[in-house]
């Protein structure tokens, strides 16, 4: 009985290992041809992660940057956000940055100087993608 139980346990273990090859890193019937295969996933230069900017205590009296992606929904979304922000914080200011290109990294674009000046001039940024 103990022996039968042991066989069952081994069988269950082998079954589980076969179901999750990512954990096993090696699998399959040893009687079949075995393939030692190279990873297709590429290395990328590690980018040291940066923390995000400290949050504001309140939005009252602050200048909030509104960054619009080029997609058509982004500006009306930000207009709606702006309307509500000003209703909640009447002395809150806003400043729009309108990105005209598709998926442009503005800090690396021809608009770099204008973008950096805009970012430095606001206390926080809300970005609407439009998707």
């Amino acid at each position, binding site marked *: 009985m103990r022996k039968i139980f042991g066989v069952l346990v081994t069988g269950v273990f082998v079954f589980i290992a076969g179901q999750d090859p990512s954990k096993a890193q090696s699998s*399959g019937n040893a009687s*079949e*041809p075995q393939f030692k295969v190279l990873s297709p996933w590429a290395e990328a230069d590690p980018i040291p992660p940066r923390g*995000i900017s*400290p*949050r504001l205590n309140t939005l009252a009296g602050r200048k909030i940057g509104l960054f619009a992606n080029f997609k*058509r929904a982004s*500006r009306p979304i930000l207009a709606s956000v702006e309307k509500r922000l000003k209703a909640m914080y009447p002395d809150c200011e806003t400043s729009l940055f309108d990105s005209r290109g598709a998926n442009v990294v503005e800090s690396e674009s021809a608009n770099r100087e204008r973008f950096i000046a805009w970012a430095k001039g606001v206390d926080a940024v809300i970005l609407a993608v439009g998707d």
Partner: protein
Amino acid sequence: MLLANKGFVTDARSAASSRGMPGIRVLGTSIPCETNEKSEIDAGVAAAMENIVAALTKPLTVGEKSPKQQLEPLPRIAFTGSYEAVNRFFYSKGWTDGLPISPPTEKAVAEMMTGTDLRAEHVVAKVIPRLGKATVEKIAINAVMAGALPTHMPVLITAVQALMDQRSRFDTFGVSTGSWAPFFVINGPIRNDIHINCSSGALSPGDMANAAIGRAVSLIAKNIGGARKGIEDMGVLGNPGKYSLVLGEYEEESPWEPLQVERGFKKEDSTLTLFLPNTYIQTIPRDTNAKGYVETYASLNPGSMSCLLVVPSHAKVLSSEGWTKKKIKEFILENSASPFPAVQGGQGTPLPPTKPSVDDLMIVVAGGPGAWIGLLRSAGGWENSFVTKKIDLPRNWDKLVAKYKNVVPTYTAY
């Protein structure tokens, strides 16, 4: 903080993380994608407003303040197992296109790399969005998986260079909602050397070079570039062309100068020309003469980057009546409406309508006997252009071609 439709939250987080800002606060909304319906926008913003304020005011967590570098282990050997187990493992890792792959063993990859003189560790390009290093070895691994031959390596290396040429705007189109697919036209002697089909069913399955080169590019975009479906590649409907869109120009049957000569290369140069369409249309001409052909071409409304596929029989009729590629392009542009006349690209910030130029249209002679017309069109025209690159061949090219020359299907009559 970033506002996106809830379906784009994972994409936004991946984009932020790949730029070294994993902590950026992303808020998913119920606002429909790309809408300009004010009531839907207002409702979505109203529902999100409390969380928007919180995202700007709630103190940072330790992880947001000082995120830790998460270096993923990158073992060179990914797995050992049977053919079936290898395939299950690769599929479970998200490394395939859903079809079985050929196991990239050391031996198979070494053989694949005989197709280039470049060293295994040579970085051909860094591929977006992850900026993964497309070393010769990684290209070869994905090429083996796709079922390519070593003679396809020069094309694949050139394809990676072309994709990462900023003019192609693969950075946008490769992962965009519009499901653009890389389309490659191969010209010059290499076309025959490696049996790129340019005749009957050139865009259909069945030819190893046409199929495997496109498939390998798709795997490279996924495994080197890190563009995974629904995570970074946000194509809404998808595109079967992402499996493969490769054909040759049927230069021998064309009355006109071949594409690579048009684009500044020599006739004896082997070249690859790339652009990213997301539509493929086929139709028959209105009439069986040159006028019928060109009027039909114009009715298809090319523009915003298109490639017209002209079958050899039509090309000969057109040429005999004095139509050159340039004259056909001018007629098309003069007589067709831009498919997106009011808003550039159909979704972006409204801009003055731009009339496509002859530089936005490419004509390629391809196809077998028959009378059809093909058009590959890109619904978008954001500072992108066709990219043509010369394909550099290894020193042992002739020997390599001889070795694989007979790898062709031989069909049994029935």
